[in-house]
């Protein structure tokens, strides 16, 4: 048996809840990671990035003064961003369709719903390793290509379908399952 060795990867864990940071850090160490740095909010994390070359950032959504989404946008498009290409996993209890789309459009690579598990977190890390994506710059977006399965991409029809599904989900007020989140993020 074998698998990916995470020893050389640098992880930055950003969450305003110290217990959640401890949980994520414990999981990463259990998976063999050596370099795990913590930050309590988006502003602290952005400062840490200046001297810590994070390969994967695992960040919470709800933080202050700079929340997870603002932090992602700052990493991706901030003029002084030290690492605009860093892989980002958004960790959150918000799984409503419009929020998943909002996170995707801010430039996150992966989205993991809380409560988390070791297997769930590793599956997101593995996905980033196995499916590296080019970055795309448009007038309104900079981040990983949101169309991961390009061959199957149907352009306008798919986007229309997403918007319709988003409307339906928002109308019903329900959150998405992790599988539905993955389907949406995977295009």
């Amino acid at each position, binding site marked *: *048996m074998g698998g990916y060795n995470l020893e050389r990867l640098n992880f930055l864990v950003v969450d305003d809840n110290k217990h959640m940071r401890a949980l994520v850090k414990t999981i990463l160490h259990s998976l063999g990671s050596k370099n795990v740095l913590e930050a309590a909010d988006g502003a602290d994390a952005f400062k840490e990035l200046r001297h810590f070359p994070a390969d994967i950032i695992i960040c919470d959504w709800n933080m202050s003064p700079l929340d997870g989404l603002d932090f992602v946008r700052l990493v991706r498009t901030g003029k002084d961003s030290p690492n605009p290409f860093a892989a980002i996993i958004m960790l*959150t*209890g918000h799984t409503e369709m419009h929020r998943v789309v909002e996170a995707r459009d801010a430039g996150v690579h992966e989205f993991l719903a809380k409560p*988390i598990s070791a297997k769930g977190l590793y599956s997101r890390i593995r996905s980033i390793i196995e499916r590296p994506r080019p*970055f*795309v710059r448009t007038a309104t977006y900079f981040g990983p290509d949101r169309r991961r399965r390009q061959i199957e991409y149907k352009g306008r029809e798919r986007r229309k379908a997403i918007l319709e599904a988003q409307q339906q989900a928002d109308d019903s007020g329900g959150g998405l399952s992790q599988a539905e989140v993955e389907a949406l993020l995977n295009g």
Partner: protein
Amino acid sequence: MSGDDTEHEIITPPETLKQKVSYSPEGVDQATLDRAEEVVAGLQADYLTWVQDDLSRMQEFFAEALENPDRRGDLAAKIFHVSHDVKGQGGSFNYHLMTAIGNLLCRYIEAKDTITDADLAVIRLHIDAMRLVIAEQMEGDGGERGRELIGGLEAVITKNLGRPAS
């Protein structure tokens, strides 16, 4: 916003993670994942300690809200924040009821523009339910008692909101 993506530039990142990650016998396999899950399960006792802090904070915010009607909105937002943390953590430690109750409380608070005496009663019920789950260490879905607990809270929410929580 998605915007008009017709004009776009494709950029190859300077390095991919595959360049830093080797596939080896020492890497993460099923046994590693199982051990990691066991390590997380081993944190359950710590969770039961730190969730007490969350419950105490919610109780303090609730007591303040009772005494300060003009600050109820702000204090309900603080209760929401703690409840959101409880929702996000319970299930990781096999306290899925905490996640379910935390979710119901968040959905209820976010549905309210102002916090009335009746709303405070609903909030208190949720905090009391969380305390009960932890005091009696009701793991998993809590069985029949757990279902009754969630069913009761859902009924109270439906009655007060005029619709289910979500």
